[in-house]
């Protein structure tokens, strides 16, 4: 594992599959280097509560956003359940920060799907177009409107994709997983994950273009 930064900022630095972290989803903890994050995982595994808290601040917002695309407004509750599970089992976790992200995402996903099964509905998929919050007003210019795009609105838009595409995009862009890990979590082949992700992005482009040009 090269010791290059895990949060590559701006253009074209990452060529390796594992250097794909989102650049802005960092918290103010300052612990963004991979060795630091690995250290937090080890510390939490060995019972260091401070390490666990710092890890929570790093990972929780990502999980929350991922779960939001699966269960909508129930995301807080479902993600909290996932953390109870993580807190209970982290002592037996083996792996680095990338492994931890994948493990945590798997747990969150199981909780979310349990929730969906239990309630027999998928709010994220059923959001009608009219319910999208904070759509850009007509008199805004395109760029101004999109600059104002909130995280929640953006997630709601992504949740309008077919679920596998939405999940893959969020797992890769937000949770920061590589193709292989996503494939493992979803039980798909890596090639299928790549294809679905690209298809999803193109679909999002269409969706955004439609929103920008209200009929």
């Amino acid at each position, binding site marked *: 594992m090269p010791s290059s930064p895990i949060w*590559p*900022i*701006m*253009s*074209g*630095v*990452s060529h390796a599959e594992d*250097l*794909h*972290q*989102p*650049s*802005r*989803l*960092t*918290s103010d903890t300052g612990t963004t280097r991979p060795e630091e994050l690995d250290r937090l995982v080890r510390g*939490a595994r060995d*019972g260091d*509560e401070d390490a*666990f808290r710092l890890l*929570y*601040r790093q990972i*929780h*917002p990502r999980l*929350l*956003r991922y779960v939001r695309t699966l269960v909508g407004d129930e995301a*807080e509750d479902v*993600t*909290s359940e996932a*953390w*109870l599970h993580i*807190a*209970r089992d*982290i*002592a*037996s976790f083996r792996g680095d920060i990338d492994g931890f992200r994948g493990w945590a995402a798997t747990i969150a996903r199981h909780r979310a799907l349990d929730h969906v099964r239990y309630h027999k509905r998928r709010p994220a998929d059923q959001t009608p177009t009219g319910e999208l919050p904070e759509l850009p007003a007509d008199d805004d210019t*395109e*760029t101004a409107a*999109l600059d104002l*795009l*909130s*995280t929640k609105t*953006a997630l709601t*838009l*992504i949740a309008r994709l077919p679920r596998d595409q939405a999940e893959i995009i*969020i797992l*890769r*862009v*937000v949770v*920061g997983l590589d193709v292989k890990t996503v494939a493992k979590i979803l039980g798909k082949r890596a090639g299928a994950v*790549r294809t679905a*992700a*690209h298809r999803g*992005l*193109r679909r*999002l*482009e269409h969706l*955004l*273009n439609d929103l*920008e040009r209200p009929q």
Partner: protein
Amino acid sequence: VKDHGLDPDTAERMLRGERTGPRPLADLLAAVTAEPTAEELTGEDAASAAFAAARSAPERRPRRAWQSLSFALKAAGALLALLAGGVTVAADSQHLPGPLGGDHPHHARTPRISRTLRTRTPSPVPSHETPGRSREHHAHCTRPTTHARSGGRSVSTDLKVSVPHLPVHTKKLPTPRVDGPETVSAPVPTDVSPSAEVSAGR
């Protein structure tokens, strides 16, 4: 042109979190990777409390695979021993034939029972003996189960759900027979019944 602007290479770089690609889409991805709000950082105390609670319950933490396995084996052994004991008791008290065949004249088989007990005693990990022992049970149970089948049902059904079937029995037998605690042996004939069918056919 705009609709086809996203080539696979750019898409892949966007998926890795690079700030690149066509504008509206790049902005959307920027929005989903924005700094977490205070609202998104709640729950830390609850998670941390769960973490501390898990730490203070030390038995749960170091459970390894082999411990689970050994527990499972012990449980399976205990279950088999229980079942074997059940069938022995049932055979002894001649309750095995079940509600419909219960009043056939019976047979003493004390020597065989003692053999069963002897083989059962030293078996902490009995999984390999299972087929042999169930054949042995079969030897014990052949006659009773045959009776039960001649009564028109498979043994397992009769014994397992004897309570729901009670009204049916009451029709046929004016005073329905209340079986004692020996009916604990009910699950056993499930193992036995396939071979019992074979022998019943003979």
